[in-house]
């Protein structure tokens, strides 16, 4: 691997990311899967970086999942998106930041489509007006929330209490970065670093002390793929993809996986349990899995937040071995205590995957 070669490609794909005044839209599913991530993002933006970030409780789904599942036509998805833009316009913002990769891809696709076919935009404006009497301006900048963390990765690093370094050996942690497919595969120029070697997460990992590993199936989908998972008959295919990725990264002995998509961390995390049940195979050390994190969780960890406040107890794969490796202190007793210190009950432990 020639690092300079990759750097050259990264330099070719730099995108403009607004500095401040962001209009934030949440993901449909992340709050269920990794409930603290979006909260942590807002906290980092506001408290750590001191930025203006606004969110509006009236926004809905972007329609992306339904669109990709072929259950709604693109015009419908566009009208939904137009409404989101109208909310942003009403709030007086111009920088649109999406928490979800599929939303980000959906927005990018719609904006590109409108650019190519302006008559479609006009039509959508009419439809939005008919539907809810709203008007909108297109955002000046469109960013994914990981773009913002990427932009301020070095500020976060300066304030970091921990680094992605094995405290015993002093070696950088081996990190697998997994980018959501809709981040830049559709429009390489819309993602930091392009589609082939997206830099958005690699940049964070490098700033925070880790080492990104480049394994053969790095480009491969996590296996979610909407229709693949949503239809039970197709789930074998969904897990086959995840399985392929783990088989490919296994020789590199990764310490952790960092992702920037709502579905990916969920599937990379949960399917490890299913694979362990089906095949009896685990990919981490000593029968554990490879812990999977969202970038917000990782940012929270390096900034010194309490792992349980970050919601890490909701992961299937135990995070404790990694926390130990980095040297992050945590209270095992409070793992299953809610914010109100009440017991949220322990999950049943799987047979093959070691989970503390």
């Amino acid at each position, binding site marked *: *691997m*020639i690092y300079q*070669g*990759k750097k*050259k*490609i990264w330099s070719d794909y730099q995108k403009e990311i607004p500095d401040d005044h962001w209009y934030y839209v949440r993901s449909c599913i992340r709050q269920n899967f990794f409930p603290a991530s979006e909260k942590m993002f807002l906290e980092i933006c506001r408290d750590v970086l001191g930025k203006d970030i606004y969110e509006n409780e009236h926004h809905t789904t972007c329609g992306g999942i339904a669109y990709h599942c072929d259950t709604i036509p693109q015009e419908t998805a566009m009208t939904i998106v137009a409404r989101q833009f109208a909310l942003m316009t009403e709030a007086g913002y111009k920088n649109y930041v999406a928490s979800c990769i599929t939303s980000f891809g959906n927005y990018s696709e719609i904006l590109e489509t409108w650019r190519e076919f302006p008559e479609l935009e006009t039509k959508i404006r009419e439809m939005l007006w008919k539907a809810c009497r709203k008007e909108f301006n297109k955002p000046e900048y469109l960013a994914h929330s990981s773009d913002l963390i990427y932009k301020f990765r070095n500020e976060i690093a300066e304030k970091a209490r921990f680094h992605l370094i094995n405290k015993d050996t002093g070696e950088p942690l081996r990190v697998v970065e997994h980018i959501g497919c809709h981040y830049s595969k559709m429009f390489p120029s819309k993602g930091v670093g*392009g*589609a*082939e*070697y997206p830099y958005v997460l690699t940049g964070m990992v490098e700033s925070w002390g880790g080492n990104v590993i*480049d*394994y*053969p*199936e*790095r*480009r491969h989908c996590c296996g979610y793929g909407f229709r693949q998972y949503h239809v039970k008959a197709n789930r074998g295919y969904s897990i086959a993809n995840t399985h392929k990725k783990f088989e490919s990264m296994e*020789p*590199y002995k990764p310490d952790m996986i960092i992702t920037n998509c709502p579905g990916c961390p969920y599937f990379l995390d949960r399917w490890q349990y299913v694979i362990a049940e089906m095949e009896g195979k685990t990919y981490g050390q000593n029968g554990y899995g490879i812990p999977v994190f969202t970038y917000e969780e990782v940012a929270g960890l390096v900034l010194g937040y309490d792992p349980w406040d970050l919601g890490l107890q909701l992961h299937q794969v135990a995070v404790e071995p990694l926390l130990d490796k980095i040297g992050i202190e945590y209270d095992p007793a409070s793992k299953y205590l809610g914010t109100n210190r009440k017991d949220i009950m322990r999950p049943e432990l799987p047979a093959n995957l070691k989970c503390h």
Partner: protein
Amino acid sequence: MKEIIVIIGGGIAGLEAASQLLKLGYSPIIVEKSDHLGGHVSRWNKLFPDMTPAQDLLSELIMSSKDANIFLNTAISSMNRLKDSYNIMLSNGISIITKYILITTGFRLFDASKKEEYGYGVYDQVITNADLEHWFNNGNDGRIDNSQMNAIGFVHCVGSRDEKARNTQCSKVCCITAIKQAIELKERFPDAQIYCFYMDLRLFGKKFEDFYIKAQKDFGIHFIRGRVSEVSENIEGKVIVKAEDTLAGKPIKVTLDLLVLMSGMVCNPDSTRTAGMMALPIDSDGFLKSSDNVFHITSSPKQGIYYAGACTGPKTVPETLAEARSAVLEIHSHIIGKE
């Protein structure tokens, strides 16, 4: 008085034209930007289909054109049209007035690193056809392990027939070059499995089909119909190539010790620059546009300006040489006609 003819580009087209012009009693001037003559051929090892050493061809060409006026390390600074001639300013300060200009600026190899998914410049074991020829010539390339080679791959059409690479034309010579290089590698590494990933095999020339059959039968080279989709590096530093075997209708994957990208021919930016000076038209494929593509392939729309070789599109060596002779004949008949 001897007629002066300026030849822009000292590749094989320029050299052959100069040698023919000398024979006809004219006074050719070769303007070459680099420090050596012969262009791409000077870095090539052997030429298909007879495996002629490129150096033999080149020394013969240089020998027969040695009486021409040759300016190396010289670029064209400007050009402008006088009444019935052209004034050319060279970067070395010399200015020439001539009635006839022959553009033989040739092509440039497609920059393989633009096909990011193939990892040229990122993976250690990915090289181009030009790199391989260079290795054949001097045996010196850190990316090629002389002792151990189990599997080698060739990707045809890198940057050719590819809208995403902004080149829709076929580079014409890569298929046969890939077969030639595959055979040469198999001769050096007889135990290695060699795979050629192709979209179409476009082998049109004399003896090319024999070459193909020889590659299949005598050298056991595997031809896989399917364009490589992506290349990765595994933990041992080998490259993993993925494609669809379209004839089997199945995805295919293979681990290789070396991957050779058959970079195609694209128009030389110097051609475009030179054309810009004289407002010469550029064709949709990016190459210089001839008066027409059937009857007057060596003529430009401007009087006194002629083309030869790959500046008008991908060509083989024999085609380039033939075109150089043809252009010389055009110039000659034009001069005779005027007298």
